[in-house]
């Protein structure tokens, strides 16, 4: 059997080298699929068709299987995120302490539903299953920074700060 030559990188964007590095570290083994997709998402912010095709071909995984994995796991996103992301935790402790009011207030202010990004691409509104900061519920994350005992007022202030940028 001839030795397998991995396909060339999709472009000379340096981030592909990071992606390739993850695959090489795992010996281009098929089981590195999820690890590699994580690297793509952390480098590019989301997974587009080109990226999924490239990873699938390099790891010799059927495209259907790669797409199946991407859509199975909530953590992977097929859409580019907004410039800023507001995440509201929807875990049980946060739910008991009124996370639904936070979601409603943010949806009203931004004019979008959870899981969407504003038309100008400025802000994405997401909910999380549980970030594990339950003792400080309800919790919001502004670009990944955790804020505990969040009030709708404090959250809306954060949105205002982003809006004037």
């Amino acid at each position, binding site marked *: 059997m001839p030795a397998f030559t991995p396909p060339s990188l999709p472009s000379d964007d340096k981030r592909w080298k990071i992606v390739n590095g993850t695959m090489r570290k795992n010996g281009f083994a098929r089981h590195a699929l999820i690890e590699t997709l994580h690297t793509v998402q952390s480098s590019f912010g989301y997974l587009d068709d080109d990226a999924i095709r490239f990873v699938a071909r390099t790891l010799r995984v059927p495209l259907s299987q790669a797409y199946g994995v991407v859509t199975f796991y909530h953590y992977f996103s097929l859409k580019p995120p907004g410039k800023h992301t507001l995440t509201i935790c929807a875990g049980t402790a946060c739910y*008991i302490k009124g996370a639904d009011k936070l979601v409603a207030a943010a949806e009203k202010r931004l004019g979008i539903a959870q899981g969407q990004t504003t038309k100008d691409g400025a802000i994405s509104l997401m909910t999380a299953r549980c970030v594990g900061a339950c003792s400080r519920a309800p919790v919001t994350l502004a670009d990944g920074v955790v804020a505990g005992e969040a009030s709708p007022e404090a959250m809306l202030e954060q949105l205002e700060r982003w809006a004037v940028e």
Partner: protein
Amino acid sequence: MNIEELEQIAESVRLENSRYDFEVNVCMDLACMSQGSDRLRDELVKAAEASGKKVLVRRTGCMGPCSSGPLVRVDPEETLYHHVKAGDAEAIVSSLGGDPVPALQCDLNEHFDKQVRVVLENAGHIDPEKIDDYIARDGYKALLTALTEMTPNGVVHRITESGLRGRGGGGYPTGLKWGTVAKAGGDLKYVVCNGDEGDPGAFMDRSVMEGDPHRIIEGMAIAAYGVGASKGFIYVRAEYPIAVSRLTTALREARRRGLLGNGICGTTFNFDVEIRLGAGAFVCGEETALLASIEGRRGTPRPRPPYPAVSGLWGKPTLINNVETYANVAPIVRNGGKWFFNMGSERSKGTKVFALTGRITHTGLIEVPLGIKLWEIIDVIGGGVPGGHTLKAVQTGGPSGGCIPAEMLGLGVSYDALMAAGSIMGSGGMIVMDDTSCMVNVARFFIEFCMTESCGKCIPCRAGTAQMYTLLTRICEGQGTMDDLDLLVELCDTVKNASLCGLGQTAPNPVLSTLKYFRNEYIEHIVHKRCPAGVCNIQAPVEVLA
């Protein structure tokens, strides 16, 4: 590395620490960090340098009472400060050697008195990114003792003798599981640590991974020696970036010290561990789904048998235990199985870590001997329900568990007692609900969770949870009928008995337990079209004019 070298490292840490007159420990767990404990630490370091006193400022893992955070403990006096702001750093440092700062001091003796710390013994005392700190507190001693003085069988026997049961929620006897993997044939076996803490409302495993990562690695290495494995995986949620980074550091340090790798401690034992990231799928907490995910596939469970102990990762015998289970291993090997067996209740041995959250005064992480009465946890350790509200229920076991009503607070917390009450021990989430919570809405919340998280492989779970969600929504909106309740019970029975994996089999628990203990709330919604807690948005019925 051998026992003597380990002692030397421990000695040098003690020597280093003795150069300081005071130790200022700052909690750097996610909850305290979200309130700026990282800036607080920087300020403490600055203030300590400026003061000229001999002060060691140390970052530590979770100290427990997160609702009082950010927490700072000054040793050797063991003075605990709560709600510490970065601006308080100078006051704390200048008080060293004199009287403590009264405004920041807190009295949480009641909170701590009933607790017994085994898994959390190092939390709040060591820097999680320093392996030597762990070694100075008897770390890796159990591994070296096992490797040099015990046979693999002896290790398995000691765990069996301790009576330890799986801390992920199932409660399967750990020794029995280890024995099965040890007896399985083949020269390649795996050890897997389940750190996919998906239960919303639970964060015990996150805290252990962030606060004491070496304890997990040591437990896994001992397990690997016991069952004859040479490769390990830790499967962690991607939502826990701090845990991932601290585990990565810990693995690197352990390799550097020769505690992982080939020929550990001059023996023929080889073992190394890799981290695998989850990607946000609750079902991956189920063992066969978790294995599929490590193999890079969709996390769908498969029927058992064969159990992973016989055929797991890539078809090889695989031992899967939860983070907290591995965290119990080193103390058991160190202190003996009998020591552990003597703690806890009749059939539930040892201690259990709970994440106490919801409507309770002291939220945070607690560790209690099993068998403790529920009221002791809620009223004494937790400080009761704040704001003049009354306790309604305690939810345990996450989406797989149930709600225990306030009348049953006399219950002793053990695997069997919780099961008999219609809930489960689960991984350790304990969410307190008061009169502001609507139990029908709570049931709907959990069913919605299970519906979204169902992997879709088997029909009872995929379609059953969706139908239950529709029924519960109807009741919450005041559109339900009494027939819906019968239908709900019937559906629960089907989903419970016909689903493939634990997710589906336990999904009806929140509905069944609320139906059992809070049936009147369902009836209020259906017959009187009102939500007693005022949570559900029921439209007043339109008056039809004759």
